[in-house]
């Protein structure tokens, strides 16, 4: 509603609905922003091809041993002040899904697996976090076994047991747990949508999940039994939404505000929407944690700071501002120009991709004609949409549905959008004239923020030149996604974006384009239902070789874009962040799509 909230608005809303913890295969490490920022947009292709790709691999038991690789030059002590946009609200692991929440809770909540990042931020390894290794699959990837490290303790000193872990998954079925990811619940119950809630009502009424689904045969062993193969379970479990909860201390709603820590820090005090104070967790053992450090004495996380405010603070670099960071706030898009072109400020920036890819999605129930969609796509001014979001600092123009963070990503551009990013209304008009569709009315729904208003107005202006009468429908930010998710709905196009939960196509193509998942509240907002696509999805899902499936997803994505065109890609999100000059160990974590909080120290 207000200006500075809006800078971040798009991301927030998107995150709230979409998952955002993806594994980045490419990474921009710190510095140099000022130098490449300007021409980045024009040379998107060239730049990206120069980027170092790193393989993400599933690690070994040895990788899973602590302590974490030391950060060069790290010092101990001090309390770090961080300034964040708004309180993440939920601290119950089961409610964690947004990027900001994932980032912050990673300081005090751990799961069975996690991503271990190399010090330069270019290599990620899925390792056992609470578990001794990233899991052992059997029975054709249908049964997975994890063992807990020995000596793990909750912040109150009681040992972490397999019972706690089992409880952590059971409680996700409770009707109160509505904000977290639902992969595990669906896989364990072998249902789709919210069907898992009928399968099992949660443990609070005394019933547990049968051992045939999830069992804890002893204090340190946990076994998952699925009906279908799930080769990428280690990735899934690395989502902070699957963090562990101490059974004896689980007080439902109250736990959401005061969770029990198993990480290096614990909550000292929390005042809603204002401040979260973290202190060292004395019962955390660095030798049992391959991912996190405990350099700082604590964190003082201040909520309620707009991107404008944090940008101003961190540009300032004097006094207390030199010792502060914002874990989640990007540079205010309106100041990015100044930040990235002033060398003295640009020095203290880090940049990287986020797993999001924006599209203008067509409602195929209404826009049935491929040729019409093609004409609209050709006219679409994707550069102006990017400019509205903040220009070069907000992202790179996209040629297809995948973000460069995806495994097996290739740049393609079947509609020539990268060559004519301002749209080609003349060609579009010629096409529409041939179809006798000039003057057609098309409704565009957008989220009502200043940036989106700008973008929508730009689309309206450009498409008018193509002979299309665009009707703009602004929807309040808070209900945008619930409104465009309705089937059927009255809109012809919507601005949407999608971020993969992990860097494999199976968190992009099936949710967005599986024709059997057209339903209110589901994510196939284009209502694409192509039998070929549906068949391919099943085929690729059955693959057990992750490398093979990655290529297959990419190819299927290209097929959908070229043959079905359920939406025209706009841009891939990037993020620029500033930090105080006295803060060390600052690395942009592509998985969290924010600063990595677990390795920071004060110089």
């Amino acid at each position: 509603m207000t200006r500075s909230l809006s800078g971040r608005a798009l991301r927030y809303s998107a995150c709230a609905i979409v998952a955002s913890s993806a594994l980045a295969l490419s990474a921009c490490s710190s510095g140099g922003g000022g130098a490449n920022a300007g021409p980045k947009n024009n040379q998107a292709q060239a730049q990206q091809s120069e980027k170092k790709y790193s393989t993400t691999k599933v690690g070994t038991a040895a990788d899973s041993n602590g302590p974490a690789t030391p950060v060069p030059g790290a010092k101990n002590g001090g309390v770090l002040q961080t300034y964040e946009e708004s309180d993440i609200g939920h601290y119950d692991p089961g409610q964690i899904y947004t990027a900001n929440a994932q980032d912050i809770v990673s300081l005090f909540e751990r799961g069975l697996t996690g991503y271990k990042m190399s010090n330069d931020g270019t290599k990620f390894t899925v390792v056992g976090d609470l578990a001794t290794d990233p899991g052992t699959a059997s029975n054709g990837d249908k049964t997975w076994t994890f063992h807990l490290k020995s000596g793990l303790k909750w912040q109150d000193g009681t040992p972490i047991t397999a019972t706690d872990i089992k409880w952590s998954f059971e409680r996700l079925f409770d009707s109160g747990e509505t904000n977290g990811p639902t992969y595990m619940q669906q896989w364990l119950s072998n249902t789709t949508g919210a069907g898992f809630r009928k399968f099992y009502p949660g443990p609070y009424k005394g019933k547990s999940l049968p051992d045939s689904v999830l069992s804890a045969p002893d204090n340190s062993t946990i076994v998952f039994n699925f009906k279908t193969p799930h080769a990428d379970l280690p990735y899934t479990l690395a989502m902070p939404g699957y963090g562990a909860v101490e059974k004896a201390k689980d007080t439902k709603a109250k736990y959401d505000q005061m969770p029990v820590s198993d990480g290096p820090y614990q909550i000292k005090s929390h005042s809603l929407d204002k401040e979260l104070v973290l202190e060292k967790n004395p019962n955390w053992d660095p030798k049992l944690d391959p991912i996190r450090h405990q350099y700082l004495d604590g964190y003082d996380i201040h909520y309620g700071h707009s991107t404008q405010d944090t940008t101003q603070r961190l540009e300032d670099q004097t006094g207390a501002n030199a010792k502060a960071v914002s874990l989640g706030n990007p540079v205010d898009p309106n100041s990015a120009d100044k930040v990235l072109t002033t060398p003295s400020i640009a020095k203290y920036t880090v940049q990287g991709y986020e797993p999001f890819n924006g599209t203008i999605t067509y409602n195929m129930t209404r826009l049935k004609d491929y040729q019409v969609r093609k004409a609209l796509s050709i006219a679409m001014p994707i550069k102006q949409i990017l400019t509205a979001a903040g220009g070069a600092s907000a992202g790179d123009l996209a040629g297809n549905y995948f973000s460069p963070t995806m495994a097996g990503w290739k740049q393609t551009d079947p509609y020539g959008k990268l060559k004519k990013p301002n749209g080609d209304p003349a060609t579009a008009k010629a096409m529409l004239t041939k179809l006798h569709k000039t003057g057609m009315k098309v409704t565009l729904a957008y989220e009502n923020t200043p940036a989106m208003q700008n973008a929508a107005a730009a689309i309206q202006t450009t498409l008018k030149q193509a002979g299309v009468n665009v009707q703009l429908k602004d929807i309040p930010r808070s209900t945008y996604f619930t409104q465009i998710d309705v089937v059927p709905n009255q809109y012809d196009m919507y601005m949407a974006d999608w971020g993969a939960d992990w860097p494999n196509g199976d968190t992009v193509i099936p949710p967005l384009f599986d024709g059997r998942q057209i339903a209110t509240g589901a994510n196939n907002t284009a209502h694409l239902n192509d039998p070929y696509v549906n068949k391919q999805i099943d085929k690729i899902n059955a693959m057990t070789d992750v490398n093979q499936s990655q290529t297959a997803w990419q190819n299927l994505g290209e097929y959908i874009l070229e043959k079905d065109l359920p939406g025209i890609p706009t841009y891939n999100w990037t993020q620029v962040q500033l930090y105080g000059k006295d803060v060390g160990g600052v690395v942009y974590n592509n998985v969290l799509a924010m600063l990595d909080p677990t390795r920071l120290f004060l110089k």
Partner: protein
Amino acid sequence: MINKPPADPNSDTGTSVGTMPDEEGEAQGPVARESLSPGKLAWRRFRRDRTGMLSLYIVLAFFLAALLAPVVSMLYGKNPYTQYGVNENLLNSFGYPLKPNGGISGQFWFGLEPPYGKDVFTELFYGMRTSIGIGVALTILIIITSVVLGLLAGYLGGWVDYVVMRVADLLMAFPQQLFFIAFIPVLSALFFSPRVQTPTWFRVTILIVVMWFLSWMAVARILRSAVLSMREREFVEAAKLSGASTWRIIRKEILPNMTTPIVVQGTLLLPTMVSAEAGLSFLGVGVQQPTPDWGRMFQTGAAVYQSDITYMVFPTVTMIVFVIAFNLLGDSVRDALDPKSAR
């Protein structure tokens, strides 16, 4: 009379101490000659108030600018909708003008608006047109409401007065700004099919109606008490005794005598309403893109000022001048209409 307040300090420069009355040689002043109507007298008094006249010219200039925005746009050869920056490659990759000072040039006198490079000069004219238009509409609505309710409550008294005043009390207890930001967006979304763009006129209507709903009470109270004091005055008593109808008394006796408070309240209300509308647009609940709006220029300005401070200058300076001019005008109008009023 001896303690008549000194000339308004702001208008002292314009006070014609020791000069002779104006060219017609007619005398006027505290003791009026019968030949001059009160309105004419006030106008004469006003004409001698240089600050007042200057404010009047400025205010008229604003109205003229608002009215003639399309003419200005035609003469100047640009409009506030075209994305000149995008079309003519005048912006960097962040959407800021390449030229210094917000892209001010012989072609774009006030520069370009980030991020698409719309023309600020015409945007400002059209923006003022929107904001002033809404402000004028609100002011007229509020004045009409207040006059009607003030008359009803003040003249009829009794339960009518009681009801009107209690309703006013009730509405005054609503947190105004919160009410606006909570309801304007929601109401704007009503009544139109999701297929059709909500027309700007409807948004503006909703904005006006919601703001009007919680803004009329203060003026109505003032006018009511004016009516109350008038009701007891001799000429009204006399009219009553002579058997004049209520309507006639209101029309012939009371309304003409309420001109002063009405004009003064109206003059002071308008800038308040314009800045309130601008404030709501600033909060994002006012007029939407692509309709140019003064308040939304502040929203943009406050967002981009770190990189492009120039953009902020034009809406800010014009707003300051507008508010000051209107308030000075209001003061001068009151002085002219009611020379005994103190300030």
